[in-house]
């Protein structure tokens, strides 16, 4: 049995297709593994039959964990918020529907920062997720549950969402692969909105080939999402072995801000591997990228303030203050239903959109966004990829940054510019590093960004680099680790 769980999703898929692996037994084994969740990573597991179930006609691909931000018909969907406590959507998100149609049994719904707002998973109304590498540390966020189940051996793969780094950063902190595709590659229908112009669904997997397979299942235009276009060609499994002829740019404006020595060391070692594989390295200037965080923390809260206005206790979810009039009910429901970070962002966003402040905040932030996108376009005239560390540090301790929202926001420093530009970016595990202050060594992620819709090239190069890095560390207790 333990052997089965060693297989990557692609290997399992191939074994099932060859008749060497029984899909039902394989799904059952993973179901058992998921039941051993001691990371608070699952909010709901299909097996429990607790409040509905998600059925798959003929399992034919690896079972999957789904971030609890995706609506699943008849099955609890909370987005990590108390305000959606007890909510069972009347419909299923397109991305999940595609998984079901592809024959992927749904293992469960994973914990997350409330409405995807957070970088540590500590903003969940249902308690923090623990990092499988060190249970005193955070798994990153907001897709912390999805990253932890894959890194912690509780699921072969998972889907999450990335608005400013919410797939890539937890993937880096949990030692797995996380891909944020080009904006529009995967339907957002049924994905509970945080910041509509930035939110994008993507894979969290053990390796790059699994990410390619999952992207192939998920991607495609959806008539229910006007902003979805899909990829021009379905991604193929990568098998590239070198990086010859490919040009990698290091954006010095960003990387000069890497203060964590361990992270810097792994990053530089990875650059050397790129050269060893025949890739060319160069420096590029992304002069506006360092303002990404500022722009992001105006645009995302602005959109969120509007997206989250529908949670009023009238039609679904939690309701408080029903003994008062309608206004009192609105106020009480939202006061009790939302957590502190969500409230903070709703207020930030409401302020940024207010008459008289719009131009100075939202308008200005959109201009910065346009300039960042232009910076990347210029860089891609000369280079195939832009590379950075995924996160400024390895996984930090639970509670370490909760009192300082700005320090928390800086976790997204390297990932936000790509989100603002709408381009694809992947984080692959590049090595281990001792955290500042000491302790067991923890994974460090390496981020590669590519031009819009260049997912195939991104996956090919990432695969080659992944093979060269040969990252095979795993948390203690996971698959013999």
């Amino acid at each position, binding site marked *: 049995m333990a052997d089965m769980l060693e297989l990557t999703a692609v290997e399992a898929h191939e074994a099932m297709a060859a008749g060497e692996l029984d899909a039902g037994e394989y799904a059952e084994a993973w179901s058992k593994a998921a039941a051993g969740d001691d990371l608070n990573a699952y909010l709901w597991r299909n097996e429990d039959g607790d409040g509905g179930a998600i059925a798959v006609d003929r399992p034919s691909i690896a079972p999957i964990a789904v971030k609890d*931000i*995706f*609506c699943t018909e008849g099955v609890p*969907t909370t*987005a990590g918020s108390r305000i*959606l406590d007890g*909510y069972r*959507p*009347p*419909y299923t*998100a397109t991305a999940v529907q595609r998984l079901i149609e592809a024959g992927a049994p749904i293992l469960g719904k994973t914990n997350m920062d409330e409405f995807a707002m957070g970088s540590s998973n500590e903003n969940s109304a249902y308690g923090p997720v623990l990092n499988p590498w060190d249970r005193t540390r955070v798994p990153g966020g907001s897709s912390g549950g999805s990253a932890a189940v894959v890194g912690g051996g509780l699921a072969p793969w998972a889907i999450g969402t990335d608005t400013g780094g919410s797939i890539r950063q937890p993937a880096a902190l949990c030692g797995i692969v996380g891909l944020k595709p080009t904006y529009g590659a995967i339907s*957002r*229908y*049924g*994905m*509970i*909105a945080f*910041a*509509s*112009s930035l939110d994008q669904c993507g894979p969290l997997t053990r390796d790059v080939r699994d990410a390619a397979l999952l992207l192939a299942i998920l991607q495609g235009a959806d*008539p*229910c*999402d*006007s*902003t979805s276009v899909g990829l021009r060609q379905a991604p193929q499994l990568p098998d590239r072995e070198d990086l010859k002829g490919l040009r990698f740019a290091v954006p010095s404006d960003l990387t000069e801000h890497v203060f964590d020595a361990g992270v810097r060391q792994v990053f530089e070692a990875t650059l050397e591997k790129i050269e060893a594989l025949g890739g060319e390295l160069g420096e590029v200037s992304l002069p506006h990228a360092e303002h990404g965080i500022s722009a992001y923390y105006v645009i995302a809260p*602005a*959109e969120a*303030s*509007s997206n989250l*206005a*529908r*949670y*009023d206790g*009238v*039609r*679904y979810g939690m309701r408080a203050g029903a003994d008062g*009039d*309608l*206004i009192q009910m*609105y106020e009480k429901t939202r006061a009790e239903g939302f957590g502190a970070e969500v409230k903070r962002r709703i207020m930030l966003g*409401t302020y940024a*959109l*207010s*008459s008289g402040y*719009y131009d100075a905040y*939202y308008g200005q932030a959109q201009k910065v966004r346009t300039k960042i996108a232009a910076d990347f376009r210029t860089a891609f005239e000369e280079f195939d990829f832009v590379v950075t560390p995924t996160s400024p540090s390895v996984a930090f301790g639970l509670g370490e940054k909760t009192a300082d929202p700005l320090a928390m926001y800086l976790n997204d420093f390297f990932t936000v510019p790509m989100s603002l530009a709408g381009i694809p970016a992947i984080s692959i595990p590049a090595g281990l590093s001792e955290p500042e202050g000491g302790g067991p060594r923890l994974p460090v992620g390496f981020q590669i960004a590519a031009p819009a819709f260049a997912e195939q090239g991104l996956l090919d190069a990432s695969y080659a680099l992944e093979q060269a890095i040969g990252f095979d560390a795993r948390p203690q207790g996971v698959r013999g680790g």
Partner: protein
Amino acid sequence: MAELEAVIGLEIHVQLATRTKMFCGCELSFGDEPNVHTCPVCLAHPGVLPVTNEQAIRYALQIAAALECEVAPRSIFHRKNYFYPDSPKAYQISQYDVPLASNGRLGDVRIHRAHLEEDAAKTIHVGDSGRIHGSSASLVDFNRGGTPLVEIVTEPDLRSAAEAASWARLLRETVRQLGVSDVNMEEGSLRVDGNISVRPAGSEELGTKTELKNMNSFRFLERGIEAELARQRELVEAGGTVAQETLHFNPSDASLTPLRSKEEAHDYRYFPEPDLVSLVPTEEMLREARESLPELPAARIERYRKQMGLAEDTAALLATDPATAAYFEQTAKEAGKGVEPRVVANWVTGELAAALRQDGGDAGAAESKVEPAALAALVAMVQEKKISNSSGKAVLATLVAEGGDPAAIVDREGLAQISDSGELESIVAAAIEANPDAAEQVRAGNRKAIGAIVGFVMKQTKGRADGGEINRLIEAQLDARAG
């Protein structure tokens, strides 16, 4: 103080008669059981996304073409944010700074803009206040929520309540004839709000305006604007100033109550709707909208005036309703070249309309028993003096009641005009004999007294003589005798 001039602009919401809602696949309905035409999208469940209704865009483009608007090559949707249970997303998807259409005209009124948006749901607040505050319960029916709307905003080009009501009627007819809306004010598929201000006549500056709502018929529209103008005039003439506010018209007592106080003034926090792409109409869509336009009332009025020489009000009476217009044009055609369209027009709007009213029915000319060919023949007979004007009216009354052929009615009733002047002369002579007093008075210069003699002749001829001819003969005979 100079006389105060009324300055009125209108904001019209037209519900489009598409099969489905603006951003989801739910069917449109009116009067159905509450909350049966809903889905996750129009109930604003988490995670849903809007998808624009293509038919709504096509209908809006037809309205834009009918109003001679410029169509934006790329327009965008915004979110208009506000908390209210009629708006499940807590924002309305509407167009803001880049509307679909702008700079148009209908008749003499300039169109500022026309844009697409979605309708709100229907709310009922249970309790004494009838308002959201202090209500014991609020009920929401989401059937209407998400119905496609085109909002049309005019420039402040109207100068009286009557003008505003009459222009609104023209707009309704225009939209009705496009076939893109039911335009029913009672059912709310056409809603007209007024922006109203006054200023000293001759001034170019605009006064402070108020917004007037809830005028759900053309009569109430006129009365509401009238009432608000009266209020503003009284206020300004007494040295006061008009406060900018929204007023609710109560038709039962013509009272105006402020709808929103300044304290509740909304900041809608508009921003571009990130869930939708820009609205870029294709060449084909634009061409189809232009080519689908029937001849519309305003164009028809213009043609009747310029090509047929009709007066403006007569042209408007005939051209507004397409059935009446078709009736008039058919009648004019049947009457042939000998009869000017102007004469036919006067018969349709004058004698025929009066006869139909007399008959008590509410049928218009087109639905009446009077065939265009019959009316044409009748008008020609009168024009050629084959029958007198008064006989013509009598025949028309018969046509209205029974239909049929006017020539046959003339024969049957013996109404053919007396064309033998010898016969008429002798009747006139007899009439003068029979009315010596009247004859004496006419000779003495009292022209009015001639009426008694004319009446006598008419009675004798049963109206078959031409009134002008009778007058001429009486005068000639009295002069001859005097001489």
